């Protein structure tokens, strides 16, 4: 019971910040992250832009390959199969999910709460915003993106989520919570609020924050309270330029914040603390014999 309450509280914190002043705390889109790699990527309709074919970005949907000629069977896009390669120096191990495999023992994302190290939430296809892989977060579930910090520099974080509505009401970006967190006590969690309350025309919500420098190894935590499955993609955590404005709401932590962080610490400490060399995995060995006819 206590665990459930704690999880609820950390998300309540996120929702509260997003809904009550969170929008105001966000610097203007583009300006806030003007120097970050993904700021050069097209924003908005992921189904109607093409950063993958024409540039280094790789995010966005892609330009239809044929002109509009009435009712169409489908649109065809071109994506960068290597994902958002514009996000060089991404401090997340694999922010764009493009290097995911169910056979990995230690991959860059972990399902939350932590029950296994195998990441089982990767999905493939045009539903993704950038590249060809992204994550599906089940309702009430979450993700940890594993990253690093860079001491002495502010951090700019962003990710995209595509919420659906669980009922007749329109989907809301505020039902998705994000935060920069850690398994230590040196840094306050930095809530990552949505840029807008409602999804853009393509159904995607963007979340951004610029946080003060952090001491501890940094994780990106995303939780889905939309009441239905959620697609998440294109997470970026980079060192922010020195002149970039901190957009994280700075205030003393509430007891709820402290409890929420304690729950995260408890969860993250389930991760291995030491080398991790499992015995040979039969499934993996089967794939390694892929050359056999």
């Amino acid at each position, binding site marked *: 019971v206590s665990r459930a309450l704690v999880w609820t509280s950390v998300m309540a914190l996120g929702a509260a910040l997003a809904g009550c002043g969170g929008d105001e705390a966000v610097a203007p889109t583009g300006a806030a992250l003007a120097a970050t790699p993904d700021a050069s990527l097209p924003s908005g309709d992921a189904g109607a832009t093409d950063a993958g074919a024409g540039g280094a970005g790789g995010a966005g949907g892609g330009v239809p390959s044929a002109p509009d000629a009435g*009712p169409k069977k489908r649109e065809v896009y071109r994506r960068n199969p290597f994902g958002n390669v514009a996000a060089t*120096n991404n401090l997340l*191990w694999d922010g764009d999910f493009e290097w995911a495999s169910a056979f990995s023992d230690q*991959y860059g994302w972990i399902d939350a709460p932590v029950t296994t190290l195998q990441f089982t939430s990767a999905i*493939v296809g045009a539903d993704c915003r950038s590249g060809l892989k992204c994550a599906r977060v089940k309702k009430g579930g979450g993700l940890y993106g*594993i990253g690093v*910090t860079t001491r002495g520099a502010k951090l700019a974080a962003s990710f995209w989520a595509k919420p659906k509505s669980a009922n007749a009401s329109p989907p809301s970006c505020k039902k998705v919570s994000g935060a920069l967190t850690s398994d230590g006590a040196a840094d306050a969690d930095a809530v990552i609020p949505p840029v807008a309350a409602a999804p853009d025309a393509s159904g995607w919500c963007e979340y951004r924050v610029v946080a003060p420098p952090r001491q501890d190894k940094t994780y990106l935590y995303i939780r889905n309270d939309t009441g239905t499955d959620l697609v998440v993609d294109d997470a970026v955590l980079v060192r922010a330029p020195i002149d970039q404005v901190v957009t994280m709401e700075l205030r003393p932590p509430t007891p709820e914040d402290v409890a929420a962080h304690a729950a995260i610490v408890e969860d993250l400490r389930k991760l*291995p603390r030491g080398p991790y060399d499992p*015995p040979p995995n039969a499934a993996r060995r089967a794939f390694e014999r*892929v050359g056999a006819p």
Partner: protein
Amino acid sequence: VIGRGALALGAAIGLATLASSGAARAASFGADGSLVRDPAAVAWLDFESEPPRYLPDGLDPKCRDAAFTMTAGDDAMDGASFARLLVQPGCSERLMVYLPHEKASYRATIWARHGALNAQFVAIYQDPQATPPTVAKMLPTGRVTSDGWVELASNDFPVDGPNLAHAYVRISDFASTAGVDVDALEVVPSGDFVEAKSCTGHDDASCGAERQCEWKTCVLPRLNLPPLPAEELRGPVVDVLASQMRLFFGGQRTRTEALPKALAWVESMRGAATASAFWGAWARGVRELHDWHTNADAGIGGGLGSPKRLNACFIEGDADVARAAWPKDPRYADILVSHVGPGSGGLAPGDRLLAVDGKHPIEWAEGLGDTYWGLWRACDPNVHAEAVERLGGPVWGGALMLRYAETFTYVHCDAQSGSCDETPTTVRVADLPNNDGSGYDVYCDNRPLYHLADGKGPDPANHYGLWWQVFRGRIEGTTADEAIFGMAWDSLWGGGDPNGHINSEIANAIADWKAGARGVILDHRAGNGGTLDAATNVTRLVRPPMTIGAFRAPIAVAGFDGPDDAAAGKAIYDEFAATTPYPVGDPGWASDLPVALVLHRDGSASDFMPFGLKGAPNVRIFGPHATAGGFSTFIQFTYWQAMSWQLASGDTIAFDGRALIGHGVEPDEIVLAKQSDLLAGKDTVHEAALAWVRAHLKGAK
């Protein structure tokens, strides 16, 4: 058997006239988004009717039933239906494709949705010994559709049409729950045909720039690799791969000494003109990281093998018998035959391997790294055991000489007389007898012999079982009064479960030894690592508690190069010893029990374990050299089941401030296997350990 060629064409298959080779082509889309087949296509499957299946001889019965259902839908990629694929674990579906009776180069494409598709185009030939199969992986091109379809394509692959037995696409689904939809397989002429060609070994340049010699066959690495990224994406892809290394890789020594060399190779990718050159330069960079936990794999040469057999294992040793005629290489240990099985090519325990392709075997094996993706190296640059262990052994466990050598040269020594031939023997690998399948392929575990009484160790005929099993008992040749017990095992996979298999074995052994042993020999000569808890548990026998190190892995601060000096290291230890400790010892440790630890090729948790034992009051470590120094963990990345890589990340800071990665644990006594002992059926390192234990027995005056 389904016939070849146009005779077996069904409604699901179209055959077009072979167009001339040219640039890569594929289907396009009409204004309404409908697929328009490439007019040059020579074959396609549109799944309008059930495609013919290929069932190889010997197929597991569970894989015989069709793993797909034909499904009608307006959103089929081609026509009005597609296949919904749901393959059982361990199986694949194989769909026949009919290609022209011509020698040509092709590119294959297929569309999939609602999950990921593992797809390869396979051509097998009438005489598979003369012409090995062509297997080309199919990977995303970047084209996707609003109704969820994702295009996969191969790089150009050659097909010797006149000699073709069967061509098919082999597919299986993953990352799906209800299966993956598949449609619109198309094969289009693309590129230039190259004839199958045999080769003599790694140094054979006749394969040309685009092929490399694997298992005596010129293979095209590009068949296993992603395509060369489009020109405008190439630089950014390199930037991302380089930043992975810069931000996340390694610890103090590996970052300082190896990372710059690796990054230079990654930078060279920018000038690559082919997929092989591009990804080959990147994989070379990964190998230059020189790290026990770090590797890249694309399965190049996978599925091939050798009709020959070289059923022998090698070990670093001291050729004290054959030394006079053949001096020691000052750079490396001598290489001796440790143990053999049937089909050893004339090699016998105690023989000395002088050279492979004219080079010292270690120099030769580590030199394979210019093209061999699987080269395994210790973090400690002075350790070469990984290369030596893989010189021989079974195809699935090394066999580097069978795979890459043209010749090897050895000196045969006679066990009866204890003397060696006056002249060395050079053997062409191609002249080795064919493998008759008799007996076992011996596993190489750096143990010439086992020493547990009553045959309690692994089967000496094959050396199998140490990957996961723990063997223990009284040491052979000792008396009941001496009460010297031993344990042979190679896994420290505790997995965080104190009641798990390995941890239970360790705990039970310690309890037994405390109760009834006067001396212990721990034989851990092919230590494959595991987890820290198991390493800690071993140390509970020999020392009081302390936190001997702070584990700082994976890396926490981007690009952290490690502490500047011991004082800075000590500060890190002080900060993190409580939160990420490597704890050792136990208040109830056996203060009067001598424990000998025998090492050889050990890494990761198998570095931590000896580090935790070293310096304990009644412990002595025996071995030929240091352990691997792999004091970190790793991060894994995978590209569509085609290419995977693993980067070591982080370091461990000792209680005195030392950054440990790259500095293997040195034995207290450097002992190499003596050739004279191998000839006499003795195990030098074990004998040294036993002598020390006997001299320090618990309770002795």
